[in-house]
């Protein structure tokens, strides 16, 4: 069965002045997935997400959300997409109740009963001013606002970056609750991987304005292997498999490879790697390859 992906981009690019914030980004986010968008600060995560929700205009390539252009067909796309922007902006002078009223007035699909119930469960004060709430509570209001819209796709830009560990945990678990209840497709960005591993099933690594890796997490983990062996030339391995990083010590070489089938060479010892190691390897790979990174970072 072929279904329209929730998000698909084709050589998507965005330039601010002369600097590309995002370049040649081609990826597809399947409907029903929970996708983590990972990358260092300034990698283009925010730019990509803003293009997805129609806040920005692409300089090159195209982006489609449920098969529609989020800028040209904003009227069709917006009701289907929920967005929690970085630092979850809200009207700080409004009360929580007024903030919910904003959601009710601006969204035809608004589920008021759900919003009220959620606010009650989180014991958010309906009459309390947004500006007086804690960061965690504000993030929860923002999430409530996005969820009560009943979107098919929920996009969150660094939703937990500003939260303390406890609030972070609570936020993510309430997000997961929503996923199981509604089956909403989720894309969330973060530069903290540990949070995402628990909740996501797909991964996109973005670094230096480009996509480095994209796919289901279990496949990604299954494909990658750490090979260790006596110090050797990597050319032989690189012919068949993609070498992500190579580290050489005096006697030993260790390679992180994206394997293309089995590694038959008996001179290598094979190790499983976890997701965090893989992601760090991809991010480190870019740093090593590009001498300008030190300056742009």
């Amino acid at each position, binding site marked *: 069965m072929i279904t329209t992906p929730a998000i698909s981009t084709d050589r998507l690019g965005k330039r601010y002045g002369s600097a590309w914030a995002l370049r040649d980004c081609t990826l597809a986010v399947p409907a029903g997935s929970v996708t983590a968008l990972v990358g260092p600060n300034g990698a283009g995560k925010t730019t990509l997400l*803003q293009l997805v*929700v*129609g*806040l920005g205009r692409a300089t090159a390539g195209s982006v489609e959300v449920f098969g529609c252009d989020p800028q040209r067909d*904003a*009227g069709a796309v*917006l*009701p289907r*997409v*929920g*967005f929690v*922007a970085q*630092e979850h*902006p*809200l*009207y*700080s*002078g*409004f009360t929580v109740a*007024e903030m919910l*009223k*904003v*959601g009710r*007035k*601006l*969204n*035809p*699909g608004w589920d008021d009963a759900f919003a009220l119930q959620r606010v009650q469960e989180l014991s958010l004060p309906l009459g309390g001013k947004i500006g007086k709430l804690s960061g965690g509570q504000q993030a929860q209001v*923002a999430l409530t*606002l996005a969820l009560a*819209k009943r979107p098919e796709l929920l996009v969150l830009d660094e939703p937990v970056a500003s939260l303390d560990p406890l609030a972070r945990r609570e936020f993510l678990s309430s997000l997961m609750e929503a996923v199981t209840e509604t089956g909403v497709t989720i894309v969330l960005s973060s530069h903290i991987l540990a949070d995402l591993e628990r909740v996501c099933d797909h991964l996109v690594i973005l670094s230096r304005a480009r996509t480095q890796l994209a796919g289901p997490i279990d496949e990604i983990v299954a494909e990658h292997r750490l090979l260790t062996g006596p110090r050797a030339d990597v050319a032989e391995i690189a012919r068949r498999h993609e070498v992500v990083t190579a580290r050489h010590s005096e006697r030993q070489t260790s390679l992180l490879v994206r394997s293309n089938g089995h590694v038959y060479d008996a001179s290598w010892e094979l190790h499983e790697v976890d997701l965090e190691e893989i992601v760090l390897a991809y991010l480190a790979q870019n740093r090593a390859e590009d001498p300008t990174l030190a300056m742009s970072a």
Partner: protein
Amino acid sequence: MIWVSWRRQRTEALIAAAVLLALAAFLVPTGLHMASVYHHDGLSTCLGPAGGASCDDTIQSFTDRFSSLNNLIAWTTLLPGLLGVLLAAPFMLEFEHGTHRLAWTQSVTRGRWIAGKLGLAVACALVAALILTLLLTWWHAPLVRLNGRMDNGVYDSEGIVIFGYTLFALGLATAVGAVWRRGVPAIVAGFAAYFAVRLFVDTWLRQRLMPPLTATWHLMVPDPRALRHALVLDEYPADAHGHHVLIPANECGAGRALKRTPGLGDCFARHGYFMHAVYEPASRFWALQGIETALFAAGGGILLAFAAWWTYRRV
């Protein structure tokens, strides 16, 4: 959309209301006092055909008595600008605080959001302008009946120009704020630009909107009827053809400063001098108001359209 826009505009609208209320608290008692003095001194009969020579003195003393108050009220000419830029604040603050990212990702499209937000700001500005116009027109009424409404201090707060001024200030601050996206600097810059434009129009452009008229008359006869309540741009001794003449210092007791002494008319007649005036007649009040209001309102409209376009395309 309307509720959200209104709720976002509420604080600024309340501040504007408070400013107008404070102004009313000052204008109403002083205005009532002025009106009662006007009736007490019998100035209304002075304006009729029965008005005698003593009326000139009565009118003069009334005008003098309230001139300092009138000069103080002339400062209200800053208010359309202040109210206009104040009401532009909610729009620019949306971008300064980044909350447009929240607003634009609800189900309402960007175009509708901009239209609703700016539409409400315009409506608030027009209401504020209406209240300001009514208050000031009522307050000025006795002075206008005596001296007309063509002088800058009164002209600026009569008729319909306040609507144009307020819209222009609103448009200016909104356009600066849309590009700059910093609330306070945009408000300050918007007001400064508004003030400069007003100064230019008041002191230079207004008298050139319609070519002024001229009159030459003999000082022995009363001033020409057309000069009554007119905006006199220039007035000087002239020959019979209206050409400026310099009166020697020893003639007619005049040096540079020409005083209207009782013997002046005779002296002028002896030497064959006339008076010459360049003026905008009072009958042009509505025509001038219409042109000026149209210019300011069109400017404000263009700036608002620019701000909307910029926000729609560039943000």
